[in-house]
């Protein structure tokens, strides 16, 4: 006889995470082939027993505007295409089926190439032409130059619903926020692993008129062995506070998972650790899976194999099937 189904009292979360749309198709006044919606959670990630529902997360794949130094096992995937961001973006889309591209305009940094804003905007236009997937426009991280770059990018991409990555309190974020509002673009707010500051900063953005449906939080993703536990806790805390009703934290979460490659274990040659070819991608995809379980909605990633692996995790985790199935081949592992 079947026993009654085990149930826990519902947690009763107060607020849903906002939904952010990325990319505009012709119907919406843009030129992208597809658009994506992220966020919308009503419980912590995969708490199906509590009625978990959410938009499918999306992975955006890195393209840099100059061939930057990357680990050999990453470079190997792109070859000469790294010389030109258009080619790199095309390769990402054609060969690796990228759903979204992050164009990092790193060369605009005065310490790197000091590319002018006008030139950077030309690159953006070129990439918009070259591929028809939605875009994230990334700055160089230079707090003096990024505000102008990102606000100009908002203008250049008008109608395309791009994401501007990123703004933080130590720069003229007001300028970027105003441009984003004017051109209806979304923003990534970046605060390294600090929920209280994240809350304060998002409130400032909202005071400037940025809507919750246009903000994605980046709490920084440390790789395994390089601070992943801080990232897990920062994301989990923000997500819980958001679900419990904090309007400044009930926002989708972005994970710049490529950071995982800063861990030596991802790229360094070391016989003790085994070959690098799979160790590197595994480092990135396992870091991503920690972010996924902690609530991340948007992933910015580097290695195509890590991307594939995370995609198949999405498929598996978002397809709950019969949650209460009573049959499982698992116990055969003993004799298998």
């Amino acid at each position, binding site marked *: 006889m079947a026993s009654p189904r085990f149930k826990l009292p519902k947690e009763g979360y107060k607020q849903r995470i906002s939904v952010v749309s990325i990319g505009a198709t012709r119907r919406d006044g843009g030129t992208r082939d597809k658009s994506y919606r992220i966020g919308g959670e009503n419980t912590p990630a995969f708490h199906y027993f509590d009625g978990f529902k959410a938009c499918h997360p999306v992975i955006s794949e890195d393209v840099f505007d100059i061939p930057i130094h990357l680990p050999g096992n990453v470079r190997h995937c792109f070859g000469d295409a790294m010389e030109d961001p258009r080619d790199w973006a095309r390769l990402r889309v054609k060969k690796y089926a990228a759903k979204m591209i992050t164009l990092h305009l790193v060369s605009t940094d005065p310490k790197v190439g000091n590319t002018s804003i006008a030139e950077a905007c030309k690159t953006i236009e070129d990439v918009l032409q070259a591929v028809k997937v939605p875009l994230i426009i990334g700055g160089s991280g230079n707090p003096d130059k990024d505000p102008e770059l990102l606000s100009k990018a908002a203008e250049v991409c008008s109608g395309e619903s791009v994401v501007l990555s990123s703004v933080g309190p130590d720069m003229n974020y007001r300028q970027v926020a105003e441009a984003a509002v004017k051109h209806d673009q979304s923003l990534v707010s970046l605060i390294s692993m600090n929920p209280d500051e994240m809350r304060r900063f998002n409130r400032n953005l909202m005071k400037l008129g940025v809507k919750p449906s246009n903000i994605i939080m980046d709490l920084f993703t440390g790789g395994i062995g390089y601070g992943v536990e801080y990232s897990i806790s920062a994301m989990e805390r923000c997500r819980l506070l958001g679900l419990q009703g904090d309007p400044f934290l009930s926002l989708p979460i972005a994970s710049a998972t490529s950071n995982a490659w800063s861990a030596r274990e991802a790229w360094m040659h070391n016989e003790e650790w085994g070959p690098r070819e799979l160790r590197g991608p595994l480092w990135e995809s396992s870091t991503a899976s920690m972010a996924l379980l902690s609530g991340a909605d948007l992933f910015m990633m580097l290695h195509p194999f890590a991307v594939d692996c995370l995609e198949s995790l999405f498929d598996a985790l978002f397809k709950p099937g019969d*949650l209460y199935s009573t049959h499982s081949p*698992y116990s055969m592992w003993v004799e298998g």
Partner: protein
Amino acid sequence: MNVKRLTALQLYGHLPKTDCGRCGFKTCMSYALKLLEREAKPSDCPLLSDEQWNTLNKLLMPPVQASSFSNLSVGGEEVLYRHEFRFFNPPPFFMDVSDLMPEEEILDRIKLVKDFSVERAGMRLSLDGVSVRSASNKDYRFRKALELVSENFSGPLILCSFKPEVLRDGLELVGSRRPLLYAADSENWSAVLKLARKYDTAFVVYSPTVEGLSSLSKRIISEGFSNLILDPGIDVRDDGLARTVNKFTLLRKAALDGVGELGFPLMASTASVWMRGCGDESKPYLESTIASLLLHRFASLFIVHSIERWSLLPLLILRSNIYGDPRVEPTVEPKLYEIGEPNEFSPVLLSTNFTLTYFSVSDDLRRSGVSCFLLIIDSGGLAATVAVAADKLSVEAISRALEKSRLSERVNHKKLIIPGVMESLKEELERRTGWDVIVGPQDSSQLGVFLGKEWSTL
């Protein structure tokens, strides 16, 4: 909502409040804090009344009970999210051995468990034990495999079979080592229970449903036994992963909500992943991925099959990350360290007292073979990059540390190499200390090259 976490004040309410100090702590309150941290036991206070003793023990029992076998204690957790307090017992990893494996392979696997160890941030990370399963269903094979394992490995063991006769055979050989018994189900549980009682060890209860686990565990508890571990299974079919994560999460949540019969550690055998019909090459990757998901989602013990170091490494490191205490930055003592055998000509380098920073830098230096002095300053336990970003480094404090180290008496130069990330401090440091400050590379792994090439010419 989770049951409210226990507080020190609650414990304090049940202490004698004499502040006599016999427990080794100055006040009852500081003792209460240590109880909460599991750094003191009720038996440390000699003045407790029987009633106080009972209440304290009841209060201190974690909602996920700790179960024990061999010399291990697993589970004993009390939160869903590590930021709520901390996770306590890092899940042990057991290497899968089957009695169908050739002798060579079994020995290789044992060797891996004994030898594979990674020194990281001052910790030695390694696998923990060997799990032997009766895949052949032939008792002589199982005995033979087990003999081989027990002769060559003295650490924690798991015996796997759903047949109590097989487990009993195994226990006759290694029972004194209190191996974990895997597993009891709705058919064999009372026989497995008998064995666990006889050999004073724990056993695993398996059912693919939460209801199944609940009813089995209730029956076993009612027999007066509670040294249990629950295995809800990993569903290795395509749509099974969501179900698996859901079950593990629900079970932890139920334990924290006070559902007593589910308040036991959970385990997972990711060796099950190898049953799936995909190429062997991708299996270590898949297994590592699923194990990392379940490390985050509450498994307190793992049986792994993959022997690929690249797939085990992230698991060992992730485990130490997740189970680290989130309330403290791991630090080393800020002082002058000697690398190799430095003399008056040796370089002097500066770094911060975050454990990971100290060990990364000192390992790099050791690897480079250069003898030198490493001055570790107190950054409040922050990594060099973080300390700079947070503006937590005072030139004042650095120069005091430099003076205190008496380095000027030990070397015949005044050259201090600082991390690349501290570049902005260079000028002020030079002014304050009178030393030449040299900006080193961003990453200490470049120090070998840097010192080899530049030190002689600096």
